[in-house]
């Protein structure tokens, strides 16, 4: 099975790439299309005690965010190309994806970027990990809404369509609500998405999927107001 990582220079892409090293190389071939990288130094966020404790307690792999995407690929002898364009919908990016004869494209782009229809005209399937239970928790900053709604945090691995947060669901992974001081934006969000990702890949390979939502109700959330974000964070135990 051939996996293409379509990646911006992001923490999430690093987490995904480092999780890919856990796959059996005899079963999976990995390639990369990296876009919009610049020469700026990438500051990796500090892993505080509470965040590390959460991951250790839940046996979730902790990536080394100081390791660049290129380094991970080089160490593992995976091939990749760099596209000098930050627009994921640019012709240059689309051409590179077309050149790769992959089974799935794993999207780990820059925050706020949406894939336009051009991506979905080929038979390639785009895998995305959304930090919410779909379709109940569609949209933005849904981890905070899960906390405010008294729910566990869920990541849904699904095949994307041109319609936001809709498509065939592959896997729902549940995570307990993070403890006080866990770094949600930089660590928790990226790491649980990567954890769900690596569990979804074998399901895709054997063509197994949940394909049904646990709840039919669909709700859309938008970028959380700082007051609500604070209430969520201050409620953590």
């Amino acid at each position: 099975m051939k996996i293409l990582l379509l990646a911006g220079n992001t923490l999430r892409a690093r987490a995904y790439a480092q999780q890919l090293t856990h796959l059996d190389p005899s079963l999976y071939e990995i390639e990369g299309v990296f876009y919009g990288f610049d020469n700026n130094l990438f500051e990796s966020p500090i892993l505080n005690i509470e965040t590390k404790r959460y991951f250790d307690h839940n046996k979730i792999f902790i990536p080394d965010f100081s390791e660049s995407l290129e380094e991970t690929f080089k160490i593992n002898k995976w091939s990749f190309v760099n596209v000098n364009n930050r627009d994921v919908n640019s012709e240059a990016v689309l051409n590179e994806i077309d050149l790769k004869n992959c089974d799935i494209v794993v999207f780990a782009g820059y925050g706020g970027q949406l894939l336009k229809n051009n991506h979905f005209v080929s038979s390639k399937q785009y895998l995305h990990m959304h930090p919410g239970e779909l379709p109940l928790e569609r949209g933005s900053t849904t981890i905070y809404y899960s906390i405010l709604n008294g729910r566990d945090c869920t990541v849904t691995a699904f095949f994307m369509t041109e319609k936001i947060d809709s498509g065939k669901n592959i896997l729902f992974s549940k995570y307990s609500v993070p403890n006080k001081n866990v770094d949600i934006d930089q660590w928790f969000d990226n790491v649980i998405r990567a954890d769900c990702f690596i569990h979804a890949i074998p399901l895709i390979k054997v063509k197994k999927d949940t394909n049904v939502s646990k709840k039919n109700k669909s709700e859309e959330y938008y970028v959380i107001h700082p007051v609500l974000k604070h209430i969520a964070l201050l409620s953590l135990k």
Partner: protein
Amino acid sequence: MTGDKLDYIYVNPQAPKEKINYSYSKFGGEKFMQCWEVSRKKYLINKNELKLIFKINTNSNTEKLFLGWIEDFEQNCFNNFNELKLLIKRFEVTRKIYDDYDENFRKKEKYSFDESRLYLLFAFILIQAYEKEKMLYYLNALLKLNDINLGFEILKESSDELLLQYCVKKELEFIYNLKEKLG
């Protein structure tokens, strides 16, 4: 918010022309919540029960729509939640309320978004919707609308001042309740 200064940065007198940015907001702990509270409480002058009367003030079609919705809420027969959610979606993308929309809530005119009364009426509608449905996207949009409303100097001296106070008072009440519920 910067340093120890008690400042709430999300009220911007340039809004709605300038879009207030809420992405990746930094955590400021209880101090941030105090800043928000101060930004709201200074407008609560009238301590009595607020009696609100709604009448048409502008020529805007959106105002007519909003007043119709308000009437439906008052008569407990509002059932346009899908339309309301679509308008929230449009508002969340643009952070603007336009004087007129087509049937899909797409703006009809690009620059007709500075009627302060519409923002206030929409905030009032969201209050009714949140009280009825308790869905957080109503409260989320209400907070953003009140940030815009408090930046409108004109509202503080208008006949809509009481409505502004009502919207702020309800926002405070909702947030206190949510905080208490989460312990």
